């Protein structure tokens, strides 16, 4: 009853919070990060957000969107304990197939990721380092190579790293930067804005360019194309 009422209110523009916000990001957009099994991908906030856009880049929203589309169990490693189950469910993530590991230091989170990948058949493992200070993110390169080797052996799971800056170096299959491009402010007491647009910038990719995907997505911009 409660959720039905909330949905009804939301459909009429009376969403109680920013949950009424609709991002125009197309999940299948060519540069909006596509996860490949057996690879490491990174989502980072764009260092140069658009003018009048908030500093947060929409990384978590996009990660939840990818988790909702994963075809199998998902593990969410959350050293800062900032995962919000309500947001995840709102994004379409099936909570009953989500393994949430709260707390721990970054090395412990990577060790847990290694264990989860060894267990096999998890479709997506998300490591959320987004809000951690840089000092805490001094991770030896060997740890990323270990993870990559496990991923390549299992060939089922994707590892998605959310971080303030690229961390995995050459182990990353692709690094995508996110930022809000424009916000349609509403200015009412019911919601701050109607729509926001999320943009993606491909920072680096190990994939070969695919001509069929050249037409840039309806959203986002491509500042740097297919850097090998």
């Amino acid at each position, binding site marked *: 009853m409660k959720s039905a009422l909330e949905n009804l209110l939301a459909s009429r523009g009376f969403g109680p*919070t920013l949950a009424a916000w609709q991002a125009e990001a197309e999940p299948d957009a060519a540069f909006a990060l596509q996860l490949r099994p057996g690879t490491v991908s990174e989502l980072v906030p764009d260092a140069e957000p658009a003018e009048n856009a908030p500093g947060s880049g929409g990384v978590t929203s996009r990660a939840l969107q990818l988790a909702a*589309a994963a075809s199998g169990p998902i593990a969410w490693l959350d050293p800062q304990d900032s995962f919000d189950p309500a947001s995840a469910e709102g994004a379409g993530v099936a909570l009953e197939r989500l393994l949430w590991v709260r707390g721990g230091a970054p090395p412990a989170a990577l060790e847990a990721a290694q264990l989860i990948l060894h267990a096999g058949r998890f479709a997506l493992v998300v490591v959320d380092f987004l809000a951690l200070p840089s000092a805490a993110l001094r991770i030896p390169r060997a740890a990323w190579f270990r993870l990559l080797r496990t991923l390549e052996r299992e060939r089922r799971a994707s590892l998605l790293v959310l971080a303030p800056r690229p961390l995995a170096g050459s182990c990353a299959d692709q690094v995508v930067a996110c930022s809000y491009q424009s916000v349609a402010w509403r200015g009412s007491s019911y919601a701050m804005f109607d729509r926001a647009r999320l943009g993606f910038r491909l920072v680096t990719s190990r994939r070969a360019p695919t001509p069929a995907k050249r037409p840039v997505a309806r959203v986002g911009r491509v500042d740097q194309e297919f850097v090998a």
Partner: protein
Amino acid sequence: MSLSTQSATESAVASAVAEDVASDAASRSRGGLQRREASLFIAAWMPVFPLQAAAGGLPQPATIVSARTGPLDLVVAANGAARRAGIHPLMSVSQALGRAATLAVLVRNGEAESQLATRLLAEADHISPRIQAVGPDLALMDFAGLERLHGSAAAAAARLARALGGFTLQTGIAAHPAMALIAAKCGLGEIAAGGEAAALARLPVGLLADLNELTRAFMDAAQVSDVLGLLSRWGIHTMGALAVLPRAQLAARLGPTGVQLQAIARGEALGILQAAGAPDSALERTLAFDPAISDLEVIKLAVSQAAQALTPELDRHDRVVDRCQLALGLENDPRPRLYERSFALPTREASVIAAQLQLALEHQPPARPVYSLALRCGVVHPRRVQARLFAAARPDPAKLPKLVARLGEMFGSERVGSPRLIDSHRRGAFALQPFTLPDELEPPAIAPSSARLALRAFRPPRAVEGSQMRLLRRAGPWRSQGGWWRESGDAQRWAEDEWDAEICLAGESHPAWYRLARDLTTQQYYLLGRYD
């Protein structure tokens, strides 16, 4: 008694029994009752069971098994050579050694006896699905209708004896349970249907006291003992002598118990096989160590052995383990040290069960030497599902519980699990449940073309003052309160106003979207999280 006298006695018993049986049959057929035909039972008995268990078979030299009872070491069992030397149970060991200087003395081993009894039952279970453990040393099998599967009953009994190679086994085959049991204990082999009375005629009447497990459903053991004592005083020492007594007069003097004992002595169908059922809820294995063990690796090995010992029973009854408890008896500590684990996906793999407990032992090793170990496993029926061709892949069932336990050891079990939203007006209320996967994973829903904004929660919420932030935009407030019926200070009680706000915090160059709240009791502002 000469041979001719014996023959005369047997024929007299047979004719007397035949008359009564004929009259019984006539009365039953008149009443419409039919005797069950083609019933067949096999009984398997291990003589001197404690000795066989302790020695791993029946040794030829004079050997006894002793156990401490009060201040004395008493003989519990003795083999044939020892009995021929005049040694019998309940004699003290020092007396026994006085009678046979070369006597070998073994200490009674309860664990070995338990294992041998389990093995006897497991092998019997391979012969028949309906078995009863009449005692640790005696198994009774219903063989009716199994000839096509195993051949004759004698062949099945021989197969059972071969399966328990190294141990001495006596088997008895008869048309009803009590006869099969007597045939096994007395070494009569197979008793043909109708020849029961003649086969039993020369056996001592005291054997009837050994049938308590079969007859307790309709006879009281104390009454049986009283009746047998009375028969002994009357000079009736054999089954044949009891069988020929007139039934009506026997009933008048000894009551129904006397009549029923006579019916057994005449070879009539009495005794009920109570088939062993599957364990209802738990299985248990215990191990004792002398001296106590302090090496963790040895304790882990013992846990593994205990888990493996449960596997045949789980297989036999088609059960799986959904939770287990390990109780370690520690020296100088009256309370056992407990380790408990539950399995999201019930299993019967000994390695999985042992791995869970070994992880727990590594995490919290026992502080003192361990003298006993009890592994208790809760069992349930296995769930069977047929996997769909296009179902999503799922983790290996054997690896998942171990993974969750390992993560629980690393991060704390209360910090690992699957979130569930609680149906509450309190924003963000959730519970963390143990991570399990449904039998089938549905394919993911088609991703929407747009998405909701995600919140990154601050746990605990960050208190802010007006001077620390510059409010650029806001929407709200939305008031929520609940738990007002609880006492002040209860964590379940809340009352707050919430805003979505674009705020530029002091020291930050860019504004961000936050969820802002004001506690209505303290008027303190908090940032509950940041939208991202």
